[in-house]
């Protein structure tokens, strides 16, 4: 896309050590506004660790992460989410016991305008705020295509729809940038195709996207740029076609002896 767009997420020399184990070693890369960037690499390369560092679930041993110029070091996950940097999870990405609709309402937490007294006294502001949230929730469900499922318990949805549910939850936070952690793993081709459409729809609405995924065709299809991690280090960075032909990337994947693509 537009390579002159401003940098929104910058990861500078980030390292993560668990005891003696090095999970990420001096990782540096940027994501620019409006991009879809893929973060790939073999199992155990440190991709999810990178996500955890960026979203505040893990404190880096060294280095700095900045989002729109704001250093994220020391911020808690919910504070980072409030800055507009929102993630999804590989697994357990919905509130299992709630209905789909309640899930989205929960995700809309930050949009509520009422305070504790409003809730206790059930003031007009509380009622209006709740009504707005309900409307927004309905819009969001329509956006991801789950409006038919609104009253079903989220935990019993088919796998693909749970992923959609997870995205709807993340979108409820009104992100300016979305981090998707292996969103299509375990999906069948039809579900994947549906999901890719959704990602593009989100992207068109102005959201920057960073994506961790094993499904290579999907990554190649949607990403503007790809960053390749192996053993905690970045070994390549470039457009999908550049990456596909990069000998080191091929070696890394073949060396591990498995390719999920």
């Amino acid at each position, binding site marked *: 896309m537009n390579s002159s767009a401003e940098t929104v997420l910058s990861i500078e020399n980030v390292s993560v050590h*668990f*005891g003696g184990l090095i999970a990420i070693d001096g990782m540096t890369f940027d994501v620019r506004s409006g991009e879809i960037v893929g973060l790939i690499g073999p199992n155990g390369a440190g991709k999810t660790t990178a996500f*955890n560092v960026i979203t505040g*679930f*893990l404190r880096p041993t060294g280095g700095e992460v900045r989002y729109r110029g704001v250093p994220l070091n020391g911020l808690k996950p919910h504070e980072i989410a409030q800055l507009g940097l929102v993630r999804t999870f590989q697994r357990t990405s919905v509130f299992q016991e709630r209905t789909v609709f309640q899930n989205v309402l929960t995700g809309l937490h930050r949009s509520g305008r009422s305070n504790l007294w409003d809730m206790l006294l059930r003031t007009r502001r509380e009622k209006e705020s709740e009504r707005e949230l309900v409307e927004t929730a309905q819009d969001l469900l329509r956006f991801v295509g789950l409006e038919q499922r609104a009253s079903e318990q989220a935990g019993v949805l088919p796998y693909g729809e749970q992923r959609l549910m997870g995205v709807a939850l993340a979108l409820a936070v009104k992100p300016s940038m979305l981090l998707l952690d292996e969103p299509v793993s375990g999906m069948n081709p039809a579900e994947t195709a549906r999901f890719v459409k959704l990602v593009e729809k989100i992207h068109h609405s102005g959201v920057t996207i960073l994506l961790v995924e094993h499904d290579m065709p999907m990554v190649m299809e949607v990403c503007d740029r790809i960053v390749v991690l192996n053993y905690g280090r970045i070994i390549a960075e470039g457009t999908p076609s550049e990456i596909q032909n990069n000998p080191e990337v091929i070696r890394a994947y073949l060396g591990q002896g498995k390719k999920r693509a």
Partner: protein
Amino acid sequence: MDQLLQHLLNATILGGTYALLGIGLTLIFGIMRVVNFTHGELYAFGAYCMYALVMPLGLNFFMALVVAMALGALLGATIELLLLSRLRGADIDTTMLVMIGAWIALQNAEQLAWTGVALSINNPFPSEPLIVGPLSVSWNRVYVFFVALLLILGTYYLINRTHLGKAMRATFQDRDTAALMGIRIDRIHTATFALGSALAAAAGALLGPVFVVAPTMGDLAAAKAFAIVILGGLGNIKGATLGGFILAFVEELGAGYISSGYRDAMGFLLIILILLFRPTGLFAQKERVG
């Protein structure tokens, strides 16, 4: 000076039994992820076994300890098989609720069986204390101290040197992998709970003759065991050993020089301070979170 030395001696002697109490509890938590609220009741059970064996039945004092431990192990294994085995994989709050239920039932069963009246156990030791300079300590307590040390060392040996211990350690580190390697997790859990229970019963059987035996004695013992285990870090056996001695010193010196009324509060205060400033215990390395 003499008073200080006497306090230090008392604390050392007491620390041995505290460590014994703590190890049983921490072992069970470390390997099974179960907070054993029945620990105090197993302690009281050991003391009552001792009473029943020595006083009405007239069994040899030293033999009675061995039998009390065996009975403790048996009761522990029963609890594990009856209540915990079917809860494997349940979250920790669920097992805690079950253990609290078991604790209440056991304590009241003891009260029903023995009434609330405190009982006293005779010991075969000379009634004149052991005197070293200005210090004195009863022979019974000296015996208790050394037996406690022996049992602690025995536990270390069992865990570090035997086949069962190896399986326990493997389970402790990674339950799933251990299972894959052919370790029978069910058996390890039962054995662990039985071992922890035997240690608690041993502590009760040792201290019963020193103090008196009463149904509520388990509560205080359990409270101290929790403090010790938190001090050392849940699941840390070496930590529990040291924690036992630390608690004994803090209590004894606190009672001697600050206020004897707050003696039993010291442990709880330590728990709170430790958890606020070093949540994984004094001796644990920082665990990976998440």
